[in-house]
């Protein structure tokens, strides 16, 4: 026990004197997660909050055009543009702007579209009235033109999913305007028959059954939507925690080079207790690092106008995840420190291997958006196990049971690396 505590104390003193190491462990990660969260804020919004510009040419000047403009604007996803330098946009101008790629989409509403819809609704109402024995009253166009259509122009580079989303939205608006007008006409007809209806006739509700979105997690109901902070803070924290391999490997190689390791081996008592002290110390540092990043996510990110990090409900599960990642990262550092002869070799190998493991492990961009084959490789990266466990806790409100497979993977990998390091070290003595 004394050996363990003395070793932790010694490592602490060594770290305190290593200003560059301290900066690497605590300052670099804070800068890293802040920069990453800020620059990835826009790409993340791309899928959620970003507004698309839509050109609209309204040749109809009626209810349909107004409804489409208001409807598209009301979703918050589109920026409806219907004027160019103060003057209403013409179809020719719009086509040019799409052709040269300035805008991606244009909607033109043909002249007389609303009139056509009204006429159609009137015709239906007249028809129904007649069957009910009421004389037809509403005006109807003599000949219905069936060539009228809302025209959609797309930039050829527009994505398929984007095009179909727009088409569906417009379809929806068309149906809605036509239904609204029809219901209005029916109401009008009823009122003209019986004036008492005027006050008591209930407004006809268009939607009897609505649509509601809820996301379901493996744990409880999800109430956090993935955003830049929610991805980048945990992801880069794990990355930074793994960077502890650099100070650990450096520490071990220096110990071998400056001879202090010889002294440690000359002192009676198990060398493992000294190694355990080192392990405990650096795992502790990893956990402190992790929670420092969490604090940045909780309090720093909102200051930058970014969303606040959400921590899920099971804080113990979060802590266990942090400790497990710390153990794996530290074990990796001890292995590298044992295998490599010079600090330079260890530094290069350590840094590059972590960058690769993090890239395939979904730290840079979420694994889910990668090709399937890469995902399979990525799932072998310890960094992806860590990120997966944290996402389980923070995004899916998961508990310890849910993260257990990832925790077991992390710890097994850590133990394996420690075992290899111990064997290599043992063979060196003989």
């Amino acid at each position, binding site marked *: 026990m*004394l*050996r363990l*505590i*003395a*070793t932790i*104390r*010694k490592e602490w*003193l*060594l770290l305190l*004197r*290593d200003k560059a190491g301290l900066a690497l462990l605590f300052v670099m990660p804070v800068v890293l997660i802040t920069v990453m969260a800020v620059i990835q804020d826009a790409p993340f919004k791309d899928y959620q909050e970003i507004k698309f510009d839509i050109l609209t040419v309204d040749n109809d000047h009626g209810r349909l055009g107004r409804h489409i403009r208001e409807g598209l604007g009301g979703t918050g996803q589109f920026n409806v543009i219907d004027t160019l330098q103060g003057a209403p946009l013409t179809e020719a101008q719009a086509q040019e702007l799409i052709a040269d790629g300035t805008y991606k989409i244009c909607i033109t509403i043909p002249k007389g579209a609303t009139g056509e819809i009204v006429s159609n609704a009137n015709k239906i109402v007249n028809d129904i009235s007649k069957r009910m024995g009421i004389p037809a009253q509403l005006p109807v166009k003599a000949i219905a033109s069936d060539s009228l259509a809302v025209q959609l122009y797309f930039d050829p580079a527009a994505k398929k999913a984007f095009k179909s989303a727009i088409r569906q939205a417009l379809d929806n608006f068309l149906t809605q305007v036509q239904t609204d007008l029809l219901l209005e006409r029916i109401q009008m007809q009823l009122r003209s028959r019986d004036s008492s209806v005027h006050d008591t006739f209930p407004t006809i509700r268009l939607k009897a059954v609505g649509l509601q979105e809820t996301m379901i997690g493996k744990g409880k109901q999800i109430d956090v939507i993935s955003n830049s902070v929610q991805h980048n803070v945990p992801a880069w924290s794990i990355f930074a925690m793994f960077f502890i391999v650099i100070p650990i490997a450096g520490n071990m190689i220096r*110990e071998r080079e*400056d*001879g*202090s390791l*010889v*002294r*440690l*081996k*000359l*002192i*009676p*008592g198990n060398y493992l207790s*000294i190694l355990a002290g080192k392990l405990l110390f650096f795992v502790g540092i990893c956990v402190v690092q992790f929670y420092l990043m969490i604090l940045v996510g909780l309090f720093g990110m909102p200051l930058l106008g970014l969303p606040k990090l959400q921590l899920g409900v099971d804080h113990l599960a979060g802590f266990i995840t942090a400790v497990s990642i710390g153990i794996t990262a530290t074990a990796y550092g001890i292995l590298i420190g044992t295998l490599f002869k010079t600090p330079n070799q260890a530094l290069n190998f350590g840094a590059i291997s972590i960058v690769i493991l993090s890239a395939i492990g979904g730290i840079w961009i979420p694994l889910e958006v990668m090709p399937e084959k890469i995902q399979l490789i990525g799932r072998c990266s310890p960094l992806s196990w860590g990120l997966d466990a944290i996402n389980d806790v923070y995004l899916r409100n998961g508990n310890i049971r849910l993260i257990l497979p990832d925790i077991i993977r992390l710890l097994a990998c850590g133990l394996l690396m420690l075992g290899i390091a111990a064997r290599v070290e043992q063979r060196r*003595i*003989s």
Partner: protein
Amino acid sequence: MNSIEVKDLHKTYAGALVPSLQGLSFAFPEGSIVGLLGPNGAGKTTTISILCGLVKADSGTVKIFDLPQDAARREAVKRIIGIVPQQIALFPQLTAMENLTYFGNLYGFKGASLKQKITNYLEAFGLEKAAHKEVRKFSGGMKRRTNIIAAILHDPQLLVLDEPTAGVDVQSRSMILQFLREYNRQGKSVLYTSHLLEEAQQICEDIVIIDEGKLIIQGRPEDMIRQHADCRNLEEVFLLYTGHAVRD
């Protein structure tokens, strides 16, 4: 009882073409202060590494106070032997006090008694003012002296020093030699290596000269000089046995 007994040691390092030790044998009685001498590459450090269990011999036996140096008794041997390695085996970024406290803790000492012991030794070696200075800022002599203190915190019965006076000034050397004599006077056994034969002649009761991993001659320095009428000092005896060729 012998403090050290080495019999027919053979060692060839992995990948080395020539053996470092080839049948080395010698023994010293308990309580003596002896010098292990030899040119560069003679095998002194290798012998010491085998004595303390850092390196395994290919064949041959080592006994420390009749305890065989083997895997089973390595821990017991570590407790009675103090090693001052040829290199400075300290944490450069820690102060002398922090280094010594850590090593003391590893030996199982702690608290005020450890602190007192360290302070006493630092004073004895003239380092009391440097106690709280980082070792990397020490002079060569200060590092050597601290390196010695780290090896004697557990009051070993046998103190083995590999070139404790290498690269130190006259004052530091005199202090170190004075300490070795003093330590020996307390009944402790001391084995040390050096390239300064005059120094060995001064303080050693017994010396062993080895070359190319083999014993060349063992005996009292005075006797050696007396037996060779044409040699005026130990250095001339040494050259007589080991030749003038430079080692590589």
